[in-house]
């Protein structure tokens, strides 16, 4: 597999507004407000990415992180098997927005928001 650099505009054009998926819509909005000049689009087999993310999510959860959309993403990655998947992300105010995409088309595979539940409670309280 190889990688390429894509601009923020290319990513946003491919993702549109995010459709009916509220998690994806929030992630797209974050990507729009907090873009990087470009993103590296590589490609990791979905099953390998799933195994990695399962460990990362488990560890982050043990450190107080909360996830939205994670189970749906992991299920989708399981379905995709060895298909390559890449990701783009945005980070703001302690919240982390991830959109995983098919490298060739930049169509979304799934979206996850991770945030620190404790900080969020403190901030809102």
């Amino acid at each position: 597999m190889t990688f390429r650099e894509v601009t923020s505009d290319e990513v946003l054009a491919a993702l549109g507004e995010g459709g009916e998926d509220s998690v994806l819509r929030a992630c797209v909005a974050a990507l729009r407000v907090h873009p990087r000049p470009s993103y590296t689009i590589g490609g990791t087999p979905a099953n390998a990415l799933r195994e990695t993310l399962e460990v990362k999510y488990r560890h982050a959860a043990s450190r107080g992180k909360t996830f939205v959309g994670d189970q749906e993403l992991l299920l989708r990655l399981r379905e995709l098997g060895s298909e390559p998947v890449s990701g783009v992300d945005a980070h703001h105010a302690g919240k982390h927005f991830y959109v995983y995409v098919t490298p060739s088309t930049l169509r979304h595979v799934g979206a996850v928001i991770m945030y620190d539940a404790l900080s969020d409670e403190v901030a809102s309280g």
Partner: protein
Amino acid sequence: MHPAGRWLVFLSAAIAVVLSVVLAPSTASAAAVPAAGNGVRAHHPGMIFTVGADQRVPAGEGRAEGLPQAQIVSGACVAAEDAGASAAADGTPIYRGVAQGHNAFADAQQGIASPGDVAGHADVFAHNAGDTWTSRLTSWSTDRTVAEGFAGKNGVILQTTIEEMQASGVNIFESPDYFDESELLLEGRIGGLQVTQP
């Protein structure tokens, strides 16, 4: 002594003096910039970031043009057998867990850390997000329990120290570490590492 010989002796001495003046400040500055209590130093300020610093690698860093040649760390293999004891005593230990079935597992069993692609990108954001198969970086942690999580029950844990990697010329990148993994990212294929069980 032949005049030409005297000239060579003088020339050698002059070069030695110049080198000592030129090199002394950079050596001193490298040794004098320890990071926040973890022993990471600004060995190669352009490539190696101190842990805890707020420096990020831009996405453009991932471009493949003009990559440094990936290489197995020379000399480290010799010390591999006793690296464990000295690693814990003489530096900041770092760990990399590799699960059985991982594409780099066979190399890991031999004490080699293999990135997904030695000619791949070095985008720390993409790597941290899990897209590692096209990356020339490998993930490490200063927290052994994190490596144990990645190794699983039947995997292996590679171990070395930050200082040993720096001394070997391995580039160390700071991870954005959004998952609180105490993560460091090391560039290229690295051999001669201590192999332990989870």
